């Protein structure tokens, strides 16, 4: 056994877990000490560095086949760590602003990230479950961070109850798959795949567990309540990193455990879910006046677009989804970041879109960046969101799923309306009476600028600098 090699394979996960312990220790010794934040940032940068290092290596097993690393798993790690890092950068100022800057938050983020890395590299149902639960439990805690408000406690409780509910299905599915094939190894299940009832039911329940986590309709109902109740920068973390990790795990499971067997038609199921999710998410987003709820429904819709790519079930489709997650993560963290920037100001509730009137000119840089992120989310070229959508829809069309792509295109047509609405308030409405705006730290603004630049850069030059996307995601 090559323990050193195994450890190396899981290095980003180990770094984040150890840093999480360190943060808790710091908090125990010196409550509220700033070093916890710096340890978190630094460890994430180091983990991201190692994650980028392993991009382009072939997909390999580690820890006696419990995990995989390299290939698409490495790409997933980069997305997760990138999203986490930026959320941490934004959290410091924001949580300070709303008087909830506890060091435990950073510990939770680090543990959750470690869980996500495990989830996105799972090669066995056991490690998959371990990663998923490590991630979820930390997220439940984060959702209830603002505990002195009814909303916060309610959101966290809802999230926990429904999360436990869905975990039940996932676990049950795993058990049935084990019963049908006699193994928990993902490639092992794929090799023993059959179309008997036990196997099909197991696959369906497993999928349901995933669909809950990515908030696909009709398993999405927790999303708006929870997103609204959670502190905004942590909402960004939930909406991006955790979804990216779950989608990555889905790609691994779908491509390796559920091959095309006669009678096993998960593609059709996923495309139905994708259609409902896209339509529902976009339509209901239209009537939201609270910008966080609007972004929650928009994230539901985006999960629908990603499901389009998964339904294609081709290497092209999977890599399109991977790129989509990358795009979605940077633009969504950016949009939430700008919302958080406004929200830090007391007096008005800046998550209400009516109160954003005229702010575009008052804070020009933030206004420009918000417009950029929203344009990208709406899928208008030349921003990264357009490229992501294009890849996904093109993959669906090449897999002969033209109607699916058409629904996607039309649904995203409707989405323009509600993204544009925010910009109309920012720029085309008279500002309210003088509201003093608190400025953010250099790091905060710097993080947003980098996200904005990435949104533009990968929109114009979407080939990753490490080589072609297809070469990155080798070996399913």
């Amino acid at each position, binding site marked *: 056994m090559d323990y050193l090699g195994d450890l190396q394979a899981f290095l980003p996960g180990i770094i984040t877990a150890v840093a999480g312990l360190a943060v808790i220790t710091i908090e125990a010794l010196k409550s509220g000490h700033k070093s916890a934040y710096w340890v978190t940032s630094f460890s994430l940068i180091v983990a991201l560095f190692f994650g980028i290092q392993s991009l382009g290596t072939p997909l390999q097993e580690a820890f006696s086949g419990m995990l995989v690393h390299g290939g698409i798993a490495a790409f997933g790690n980069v997305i997760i760590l990138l999203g986490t890092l930026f959320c941490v950068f934004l959290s410091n100022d924001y949580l300070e602003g709303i008087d909830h800057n506890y060091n435990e938050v950073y510990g939770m983020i680090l543990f959750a990230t470690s869980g996500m890395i495990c989830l996105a590299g799972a090669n066995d149902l056991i490690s998959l479950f371990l990663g998923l639960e490590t991630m979820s439990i930390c997220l439940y805690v984060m959702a209830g961070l603002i505990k002195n408000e009814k909303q916060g406690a309610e959101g966290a409780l809802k999230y926990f109850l429904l999360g436990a509910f869905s975990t039940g299905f996932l676990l049950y599915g795993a058990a049935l798959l084990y019963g049908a094939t006699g193994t928990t190894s993902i490639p092992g299940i794929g090799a023993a795949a059959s179309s008997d009832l036990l196997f099909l039911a197991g696959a369906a329940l497993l999928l349901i567990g995933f669909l809950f986590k990515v908030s696909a309709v009709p398993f999405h*109902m927790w999303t708006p309540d929870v997103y609204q109740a959670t502190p905004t920068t942590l909402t960004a973390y939930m909406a991006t990193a955790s979804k990216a990790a779950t989608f990555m795990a889905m790609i691994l499971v779908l491509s390796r455990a559920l091959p095309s067997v006669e009678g096993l038609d998960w593609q059709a199921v996923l495309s139905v879910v994708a259609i409902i999710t896209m339509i529902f998410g976009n339509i209901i987003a239209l009537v939201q006046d609270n910008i966080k709820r609007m972004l929650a429904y928009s994230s539901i819709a985006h999960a629908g677009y990603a499901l389009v790519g998964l339904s294609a079930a081709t290497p092209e489709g999977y890599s399109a989804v991977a790129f989509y997650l990358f795009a979605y993560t940077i633009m969504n963290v950016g949009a939430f970041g700008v919302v958080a920037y406004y929200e830090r100001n007391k007096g008005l509730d800046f998550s209400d879109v009516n109160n954003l009137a005229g702010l575009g000119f008052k804070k020009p840089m933030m206004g420009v960046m918000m417009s950029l992120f929203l344009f990208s989310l709406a899928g*208008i070229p030349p921003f990264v969101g357009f490229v992501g959508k294009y890849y996904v829809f093109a993959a669906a069309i090449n897999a002969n799923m033209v109607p699916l792509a058409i629904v996607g295109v039309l649904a995203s047509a409707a989405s323009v309306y509600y993204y544009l609405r925010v910009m109309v308030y920012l720029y085309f409405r008279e500002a309210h009476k003088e509201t003093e705006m608190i400025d953010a730290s250099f790091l905060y603004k710097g993080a947003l600028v980098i996200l904005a630049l990435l949104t533009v850069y990968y929109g114009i030059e979407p080939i990753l600098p490490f080589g072609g996307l297809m070469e990155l995601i080798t070996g399913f």
Partner: protein
Amino acid sequence: MESATALFSLIIALPLLGFLINGLTGLFVESYRNKKQLIGSIASTAVFIPFVIAVYFFINMNAGSEALIYKLFTWMDVGTFSVDVAYRVDQLSVMMTMVVTGVGFLIHIYSMGYMSHDEGYWKFFAYLNLFIFAMLNLVLGNNLLLLFLGWEGVGVCSYLLIGFWYTDMAKSDAAKKAFIYNRIGDFAFLIAMFMVFQTVGSLNFDVILGNLDSFTEGYMVAIGLLMFVGATGKSAQIPLFVWLPDAMAGPTPVSALIHAATMVTSGIYLISRMSPMYAMIPEVMIIISVIGALTAIVAATIAITQNDIKGVLAYSTVSQLGYMFLALGAGGFTAAMFHVVTHAFFKACLFLGSGSVIHAMEHVEHGLHKEGKDVHFDPQDMRFMGGLKKYMPSTYKTFLIATVAIAGIPPLAGFFSKDEVLAMTMNAGFVDGGSWVYMMLWGVGIITAFLTAFYMFRLTLTTFHGSFKLPTKIKEAAGSEKFLHENPWNMTTPLWILAVLAVFGGFLGVPNFIVETFTHEPAHINLLHDWLYKINADYIIEMEHWVEWVLMAVSILIAISGVWLAFRMYNNDQQEESDAKIASRFGGLYSVWKDKYNLDDVYEGLVANPTVKFSDKVLAVFDMKVVDGIVNAIAGTVRLFGSLFRYLQTGVVSSYALAFVIGVIVILYLMIS
């Protein structure tokens, strides 16, 4: 990068650079916003240099030259799917580039005068540069995706510029209306693009047009129709044209540049670019012609009744765009492009001239206010004008020249292009498999030509001839003509340049038959036709020469009689009596024209009102804030569903779990069955 690519990339890069410099500096450095000379010069230079480079490319090209492809970098690359940021310089795109940058430059110069007192000066020029950048991507892109990038980009810029004076609610609504109407068209285009990609696996024009036989008949018809729907959105054709007149809420230079000369012609460019495909689907061609002809006559009849100087020009633009589609559908792709070019000259001149008039009228209003008189009037309403030729000689002369051009009086530009449009329409009735429908459409075109000459002279005579009517209309404004004066040189010079182009632009396309009748061998005096023969799949002219002579004579007679009638009815301050006379002659028909065929109301009545009633009575809780036209009607309908769904979202965990379980049952059923 080799030197030719570097030189070419300046065409694209400079307007973008101008946008970034003015936009970013203006946004962050407050003192920069007042350096108006500097801002205007940077923006104008960023358009002028690309114009010079485009001319250089034009000179180094001849009619037989192969297209030059300049690839800057690879944009997307996944598996078999690859798109480059590559530009295509060929006879068609170089021509469009010269029009966009040339007319664009003149309008930049004009705007330096027109916008000089506006606080948002820096923003205005930043947007203009961004528009030019997007428009150049549209006409120069070597693949459909890059064209689409420009297509969306010009839509965004048009949105920003229509709503430029956003403090006014009506204006920001007009902006939104324009944007959303355009999006309707855009999505048809996007679906067409996917279908093209699915069939040939590429979006490059060379590949698409080289593999037309791999499309099935049905696919080709669908793609052709979808692209045409896209074009009707951008180029304001029935049924999507209602946004364009509202778009006149933007500053007048914007109307001239975007909503007359360039952006609105992009639908025509697209179909022209795809002409080899369209030539293979005659059933779609006939639809294009019918829509074009209908739009032309509908808009022309509305134009007769308008009193807003920009309103007349807006409907006139819609009508002229209809002519271009008429020609496209009749296999006259070159004729349509010819009309695009000449129309850019004379319509830009007319819009800038109207801007000059509005500027002067606003000046009168300000002057009266300074005297302490509380007088308010609409500076765009021609009923308050009249006799302006004495006070604004340059504006008058250029406006008159452009009016003669658009009316189709030889030998000015509009005569030749309109004549070719009409001749090609008739010709489509003669070609093999041609339809009698085209001959009917020729008739519609001729009536429209008469109306065009008539309403344009109505506008010019009412505005510039007779006496200044403001003092007689409003007592307090007596003596206000002393505030009238001609505008500064940077506004009149562009007018003169455009007027000269409106005089001579037509010689690009003098019909060959004029010479052929005498020499009896193929002539080459139609320069444009020779220039574009490699790109446009025009129908061959099947008509005898004598038929062409007759058609030309008819269109000259029609134009002259339109002008003559307008002179009789409008030359001596008789506008309101004459309008009343027409109204009583045509009765109900006239009020239909005046109410713009009630199209806004129809859209509202069909979709919006039932929705409102339903939501008022059935769902009174649901707040419908704005219901205006189809834009909000669509949004309203969708919002209605949205709020229905919202009731499902009650916030109770048990109902969430119930939905969850239903989902589980459905998915299990789907998987197992």
